[in-house]
């Protein structure tokens, strides 16, 4: 039993102390048996606080440590390291969660939160008193990573992982790589086009022996855990013979073009955001990868006309299922652009109101003159923050990339066509960092900036053939200004993918913005609460391509460092049999899913024994034992029962 315990109550800035009276918690805990030191600290995780705790442990020969702070999922290992650095066994440290499960959960009830914090710290104290000194156990892990999504984030990550020696399965749900980036033309800051970036990454992926690329493939189920996931994949047929390569065979390419021409099915082209139509057999642009067209199974009527003109088309291809084993999973599933509601700033009601994404595609489709609905465009009005920073809607967040993207596009459009006038109706421009250069350039070339508050947005109206926007411009003392526009561009932000079912399969939590949620935005920015599952890019938050690349490289490094040694260190939480009271009945072996219990002789009787290498520490064998002869290390009867007593005091 530990008798010299140090207890530290963290303010977490104000995150805890705004709702929990940390001084009161400390004073009450200081009077508990076995407590040698009780202190509050502003940030227990700060270097200075860690050093102070280490000094206290060493100066006072502490034999146990309790830190009451955030969730152990965030800092358990930080503080175990503190204990270890001070010469204390890391398993003689217990963390009380007084942030996620106290101050934040009960921010409506500070008194209740303080009472609960006191009980939780007392329970942690009870547990640490009975804690044992333990060592980590190790299990083999597969150094293979499943990267989901072959956009820039997924391909960049796959290349990095492969370079570091990990095997990579890179899967893409659609039939073409590149994701959203392939839809954009010139990009800030290098002026490289989306197509150029995608093709460069695609060839690197193809050249790498460590990467297997699966097109038209998605995850349908997942089992196992970190180091040893078993993932079932479903591959949708492309309906093109995989042996036919368009780049080597002009005759085949001509036949495919005939098949596209003859296809009777026309559907809205999502690649151009509905500005054009495409056939059921399609390819979005000439250099799209893989270079073969694909047949859209959802819309193809299987009329067979295409097969008659192109023998490389195989409409009898079936879905394929395969199971792969991976040690970690990285989600790079990207975003969807916000689709304005009907009537939102005239969208879908006034014919010359389009989104920024549609506008970018329109520029690509108009080589010489900017034409929309048969009318040449001169005056363009951009309305900012559509679907972002919403006062009444769910999207409270700033999408961050859209100011820069709109301004960059405005500069590009003025550069590409003649006699263009840009009017930017904004709520405050957020071109942070180097992107400020664009704002300056746009202003210098004569773009007009008008600004309004959130509660007084611009109003789009139609008078005969004229579309006008009225704004109360705060930059000219709230003067009402009317802008006549040939085209109104709604600067729409990012929202999470509409089909985010992969999150449910992997059980990755969502944040308040409905993007996938990391454990901590600064301390564990690409990790999720599911061990071995990482997130990166715009599936996590609105990010531009530069930020996406940084995020995805971070996730790749995390996944590789987790798996590269071929084994993962696991908690030494395994079952223990009290041989003296075990009377072999076999119930524990039936409950154990890992065959981790054997029968041995002990003092002239048969008893159960735990095979340590096989035991995963689930504890399923504990409750089935009629003699209560099994305990789980770290969760013994005495630890749990004294915690219960402390909580109810």
């Amino acid at each position, binding site marked *: 039993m530990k008798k010299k315990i140090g207890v530290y109550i963290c303010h977490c800035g104000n995150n805890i102390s705004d709702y929990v009276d940390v001084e009161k918690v400390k004073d009450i805990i200081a009077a508990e048996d076995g407590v040698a030191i009780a202190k509050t600290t502003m940030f227990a995780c700060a270097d200075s606080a860690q050093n102070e705790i280490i000094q206290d442990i060493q100066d006072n020969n502490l034999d146990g440590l309790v830190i009451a702070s955030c969730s152990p999922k965030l800092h358990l290992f930080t503080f175990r390291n503190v204990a270890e650095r001070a010469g204390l066994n890391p398993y003689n440290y217990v963390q009380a969660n007084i942030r*996620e499960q106290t101050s934040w959960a009960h921010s409506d009830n500070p008194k209740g939160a303080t009472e609960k914090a006191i009980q939780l710290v007392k329970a942690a104290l009870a547990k640490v008193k009975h804690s044992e000194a333990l060592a980590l156990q190790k299990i083999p892990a597969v150094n293979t990573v499943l990267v989901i999504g072959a956009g820039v984030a997924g391909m960049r990550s796959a290349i990095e992982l492969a370079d570091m020696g990990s095997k990579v399965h890179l899967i893409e749900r659609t039939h073409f790589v590149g994701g959203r980036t392939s839809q954009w033309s010139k990009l800030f800051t290098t002026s490289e086009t989306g197509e150029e970036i995608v093709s460069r990454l695609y060839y690197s992926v193809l050249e790498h022996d460590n990467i297997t690329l699966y097109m038209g493939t998605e995850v349908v189920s997942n089992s196992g855990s970190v180091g040893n996931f078993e993932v079932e994949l479903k591959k949708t047929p492309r309906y093109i013979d995989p042996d036919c390569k368009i780049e080597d065979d002009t005759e085949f390419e001509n036949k495919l073009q005939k098949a596209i021409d003859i296809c009777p099915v026309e559907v809205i082209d999502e690649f151009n955001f509905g500005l054009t139509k495409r056939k059921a057999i399609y390819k979005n642009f000439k250099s799209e990868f893989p270079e073969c067209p694909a047949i859209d199974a959802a819309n193809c009527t299987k009329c067979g006309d295409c097969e008659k003109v192109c023998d490389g088309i195989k409409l009898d291809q079936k879905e394929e299922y395969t199971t792969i084993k991976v040690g970690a999973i990285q989600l790079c599933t990207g975003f969807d652009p916000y689709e304005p509601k009907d009537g939102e700033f005239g969208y879908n009601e006034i014919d010359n109101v389009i989104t920024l994404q549609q506008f970018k595609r329109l520029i690509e489709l108009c080589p010489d003159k900017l034409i929309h609905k048969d009318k040449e465009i001169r005056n363009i009005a951009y309305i900012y923050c559509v679907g972002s920073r919403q006062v009444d809607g769910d999207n409270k967040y700033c999408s961050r990339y859209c100011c820069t993207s709109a301004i960059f596009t405005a500069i590009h459009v003025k550069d590409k066509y003649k006699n263009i006038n840009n009017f930017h109706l904004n709520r405050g421009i957020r071109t942070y960092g180097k992107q400020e250069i664009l704002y300056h350039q746009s202003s210098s070339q004569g773009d007009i900036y008008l600004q309004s508050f959130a509660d007084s947005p611009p109003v789009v109206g139609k008078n005969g053939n004229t579309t006008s926007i009225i704004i109360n411009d705060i930059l000219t003392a709230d003067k009402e200004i009317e802008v006549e526009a040939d085209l109104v561009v709604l600067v729409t932000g990012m929202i999470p993918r509409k089909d985010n079912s992969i999150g449910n399969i992997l059980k990755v939590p969502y944040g308040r913005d409905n993007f996938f949620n990391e454990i901590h935005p600064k301390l564990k920015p690409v990790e999720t609460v599911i061990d071995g599952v990482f997130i990166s890019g715009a599936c996590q938050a609105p990010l531009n391509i530069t930020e996406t690349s940084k995020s995805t490289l971070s996730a790749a490094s995390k996944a590789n460092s987790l798996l590269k040694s071929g084994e993962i260190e696991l908690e030494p939480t395994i079952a223990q049999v009290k041989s003296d009271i075990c009377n072999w009945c076999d119930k524990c072996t039936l409950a154990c899913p890992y065959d981790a219990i054997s029968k041995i002789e002990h003092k002239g009787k048969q008893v159960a024994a735990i095979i340590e290498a096989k035991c995963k520490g689930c504890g399923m064998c504990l409750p089935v034992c009629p003699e209560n002869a099994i305990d789980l290390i770290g969760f013994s009867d005495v630890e749990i029962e004294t915690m219960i007593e402390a909580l109810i005091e």
Partner: protein
Amino acid sequence: MNNQNLNGAPKILVFSTEKISDPAIDLAGLLKVHYPSTVYTINVPCSSAVKTKWILHAFEKGFDGVFIAADGTDCPYGESCSKLTGEIVSVTHERMKEQNIDPARLKMAAICSVCAEAFAKHVKSFTEYLSKEKNTN
């Protein structure tokens, strides 16, 4: 009701699981989804590791209710978790009846790692039930 906490709101002990339901309870805090502050959590690796002995100990010491936030089908340790956890609840219910403890004071529900709202809803309605029971006794 024996040894029940008769002052203030009912006290509920939650057995959560480290990888599945405890993250959901953390998420409830992160999202500021409020629930009664008299709900206390002890986490274990898997819900099928909760001993009947611990549950009865909680009642004996004064907890009004025990809620097992089970892994359900998401259990990383295997498919048998749901069945085994269900059996623990059945066995414990029998033992509670023997000791004249209302079996409804032990509840179980599958709480996945994103079930923050569901968790809060469960413990709120459980608190309401236990409050009514306290007032009628």
